[in-house]
């Protein structure tokens, strides 16, 4: 989708840094200065320069304005008629975070007394240990304008500490803007061991927190006078709560649903910790409660799919085989079943409308909120934002929730959120206003590093190309666990394709669920079963001669590059 604009130069720059670390001198980068000229600059929601220049130097915004002198060493990007925004901030997700390999989880001898790790209680873990700078998800999110994100580790109950990262950078540490930004929790139980259900989880949560409060008091008493008092035992889990108890660190909960969020609020009201609610999807009935609790909120960028009325009707009609549908006459009275179905569909449509209008409701109630990309597919996010705007969220408010508000909620206003002198050079440059349906992101800057987006057309594949896929292919998928190779075989039956995949880490040959070839655009999908769960893999690629290249998207684990070549006959 994108390539580094001055890839050679940047490569050299990185190379140098690496070499410097070894005390050897090499080539310095040619320049880290850029000038975006003649652009419409939206410095912040409601604050626009019609025609101006942004100068970027050494990762920072050096100058913004209508009449700014372009430094002589600057690479000039002619941004005539383009739109420059501050880089977007994702308030809560797992972008760039690797899922630790799941060990074989045997049921422990006594499911009532599992280890903390098995129960999901590892608040001492740090997401920095799981960051992977080359995770494709970082690129996907950056391609639509996001330049920073608050990320959390994988896990169920108390997986560990979150960090705020730059969506660019070579190493895990280089990505980190703020470490230990919050302590992360999900109200979900451990499989088969205590606490397994929501009631167990809530009890364990209260128990741990109160134990931590007591331990903290005991330790400070001990610290004040140690003579004649038995040493309190150190406990990593309980000690992790101390900054939260001191109100120095917020608790960050993943909480999509209404009841779940009210449960989070119960804990908050019982235990009085600072709270961030992440990936909220059903928050509109409890806006008042969230406000009273002083919770910071990141609304989900995921929305339920819109129902396309015509498609659905056709499908439903095709499915109701028993009843031969006469050509519809408008005056014909509807059957009870039809009326019931219409009423249910209306309720479903209303529900979808409510979800879509959540952001507008929060805005109307004057609650500041950011957005969360946790469960949203990056490719859906711009369209979902447009749906929220169509449902009553003003464009300025939408922009604020992508820039200034999350910067505020996360304490980053001195560095991020607006296009102003001295801020980090995190910018999104589009060819049309961002919320326009036809807008394309052309450039993204992350801390002064430029990423240029390829213009999309080339990617789509050529509908008129004639390629042949029948036969056996060797595929290589680049995943965080390393490269994996498989054999994929395609067969043609009439005009339809079928196929199978085998080899690599697969124990058996798996049939492909669907194979399509339009021109030279190839897609296929299959399901992996993984510890009793089924994970869908969807591949889309462009075929050129005896090779294809594209993306393999693996359930919620992300999307990886796949390359293949046809095996010789």
């Amino acid at each position: 989708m994108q390539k580094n604009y001055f890839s050679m130069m940047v490569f050299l720059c990185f190379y140098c840094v690496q070499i410097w670390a070894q005390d050897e001198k090499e080539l310095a980068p040619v320049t880290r200065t850029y000038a975006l000229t003649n652009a419409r600059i939206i410095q912040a929601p409601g604050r626009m320069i019609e025609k101006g220049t942004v100068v970027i130097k050494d990762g920072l915004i050096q100058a913004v304005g209508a009449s700014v002198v372009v430094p002589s060493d600057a690479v000039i990007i002619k941004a005539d008629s383009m739109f420059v925004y501050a880089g977007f901030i994702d308030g809560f997700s797992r972008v760039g975070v690797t899922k630790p390999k799941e060990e074989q989880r045997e049921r422990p001898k006594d499911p009532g007394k599992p280890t903390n790790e098995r129960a999901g209680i590892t608040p001492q873990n740090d997401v920095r240990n799981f960051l992977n700078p080359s995770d494709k998800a970082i690129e996907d999110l950056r391609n639509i304008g996001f330049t920073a994100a608050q990320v959390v580790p994988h896990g169920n109950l108390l997986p560990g500490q979150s960090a705020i990262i730059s969506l660019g950078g070579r190493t895990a540490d280089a990505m980190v803007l703020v470490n230990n930004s919050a302590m992360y929790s999900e109200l979900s139980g451990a499989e088969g061991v205590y606490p397994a259900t929501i009631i167990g989880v809530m009890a364990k949560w209260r128990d741990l927190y109160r134990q931590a409060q007591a331990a903290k008091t005991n330790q400070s008493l001990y610290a004040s006078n140690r003579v004649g008092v038995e040493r309190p035992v150190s406990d990593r889990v309980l000690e992790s709560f101390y900054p939260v108890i001191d109100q120095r660190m917020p608790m960050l909960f993943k909480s999509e649903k209404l009841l779940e969020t009210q449960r989070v609020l119960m804990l908050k009201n019982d235990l009085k910790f600072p709270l961030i609610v992440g990936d909220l999807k059903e928050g509109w009935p409890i806006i008042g409660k969230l406000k009273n609790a002083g919770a910071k909120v990141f609304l989900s960028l995921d929305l339920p799919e819109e129902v396309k009325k015509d498609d659905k009707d056709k499908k439903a009609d095709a499915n109701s085989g028993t009843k031969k549908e006469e050509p519809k006459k408008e005056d014909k009275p509807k059957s009870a079943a039809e009326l019931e179905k219409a009423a249910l569909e209306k309720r479903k449509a209303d529900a979808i409308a409510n979800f879509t209008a959540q952001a507008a409701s929060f805005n109307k109630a004057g609650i500041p909120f950011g957005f969360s990309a946790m469960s949203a597919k990056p490719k859906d996010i711009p369209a979902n934002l447009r749906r929220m705007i169509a449902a009553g969220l003003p464009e300025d408010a939408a922009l604020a929730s992508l820039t200034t508000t999350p910067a505020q909620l996360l304490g980053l206003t001195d560095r991020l959120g607006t296009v102003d002198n001295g801020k980090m050079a995190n910018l999104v440059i589009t060819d049309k206003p961002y919320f326009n349906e036809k807008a394309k992101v052309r450039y993204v800057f992350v801390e002064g590093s430029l990423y240029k987006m390829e213009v999309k057309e080339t990617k789509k594949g050529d509908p008129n190309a004639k390629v042949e896929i029948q036969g056996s292919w060797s595929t290589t998928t680049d995943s965080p666990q390393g490269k994996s190779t498989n054999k994929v075989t395609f067969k043609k039956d009439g005009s339809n394709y079928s196929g199978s995949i085998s080899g690599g880490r697969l124990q058996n040959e798996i049939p492909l669920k669907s194979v399509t070839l339009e021109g030279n655009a190839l897609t296929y999908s299959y399901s992996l079963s993984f510890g009793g769960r089924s994970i869908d893999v969807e591949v889309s690629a462009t075929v050129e001669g005896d090779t294809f290249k594209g993306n393999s998207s693996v359930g919620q684990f992300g999307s990886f590059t796949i390359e293949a070549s046809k095996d010789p006959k």
Partner: protein
Amino acid sequence: MNFKFTKIKVGSKQLAVVSAFTILLFALTATAQIERGSVLIKNGTVLTVTKGTLEQTDVLVRDGKIVQIGKSIATPAGVNVIDASGLFVMPGIIDAHSHIGLDAINEGTNAITPEVHVADAINPMQISIYRALAGGCTTSHAMHGSANSIGGQCQTIKHRFGTFDQETMKMEGAPRTIKFALGENPTGHGRRDGTQPQTRMGVEFVIREAFSQAKEYKEAWEKYNTNKLVKGFRGTPPTYSLRLETLAEILKGNIIIHCHSYRADEINMMLNVCKDFGIKRITFQHVNEGFKVAPELAAAGAMASVFSDWWQYKLEVYYSTAYNAAILVKNGVVTSINSDDAGMIRNLYHQAGKTQKYGGLSDDEALSLITINPAKQLGIENRVGSIEVGKDADFAIFKNHPLSIYGVPQYSIVDGVVRFDRAKDANDMRLWTDPKETVDIPTIHKSYAHDKDNCVQDVELDLSDLFNN
């Protein structure tokens, strides 16, 4: 135990404080916004349950409370009137054993989980709550399951269907209750996991051990709290444990035990355990062999909540009789009939009626089984369970007598608010719609048939070894 209640003014968050439970109060001020109505129910046959049957009588409700019962009460301004001419007005039905309105029932991973509380799993949007209202049931005891010997704490809920707020579902001020379980369910579970208890002996041991630990915990804290006041005291407090904390509250008499049990021997065992640890308040649940130990139950002041005639669904319930409720009542045991089921909760009045066929109970005795008696078992008898001035305005209004097979609920009223009106019973009463649901006709909903033991929802049992224990 003496519980005082909190009065809440309609339409305001102001609380008139009567209670000493400041923590509870804090929670209430923070969240509860309970809707309370005013209504005049005119000219019905009022089945008070405790004060006889009053023909052609009016009941006046103000702000959720019954303020007057009598003939020809003038309609105050702004009060809605329900014409109950030819109808029967009874107290809202109370189910002392149910699992509706909950997202989780069993934390069955450990034999002892008193720290868990089903109040954390309340789901006010469950349609089963509305269905219970359609059967005249206005209050239920949402219970933890019977997977473990000492399960979780239960929650008495009022069927205030229409709210999203879990707090609002709780019956404010209702005493704390907890689920215990004896017999096949906890032992089957133990056998599956290879943990205690695997036999009835094991159940007794597990409970006695837990109470002994709680006693030590309680004493350690008492000692620490006394020593703390001595000048120059230096020492660390005992380690906090929500589990032991909760068990200690049972020992202090602050939590009522509701004990899942079937056989006479295990009921006697549990009575002995209670006696040894000074526990006074216990209601046995199911109690299919209660008829064998009715005098013992009565003597201990223990209560019994039974099925009308459900039996034979597992080995320990083969020795059962439909006369169980009547025998317990005649022996002076405070007895209720419960549903333990989202289907049966809709016809508890039929279940109560069966005791007239099997045991010849009077109307008031039979109605007590689903009103004032379950109220006593939940410790809420000064609030609900009969139609008396000062009590909560919870009613079920029937066409035909509720104990008649022709009885049909017309209205269910909770705190003076009509929550079910047969005339306004729309097809789709759901409070919440899933935007991803598949709409298809006919929609087949989850079966609520009484073909399974809801007490063991979410757990697997190994009953293969049944005959060896």
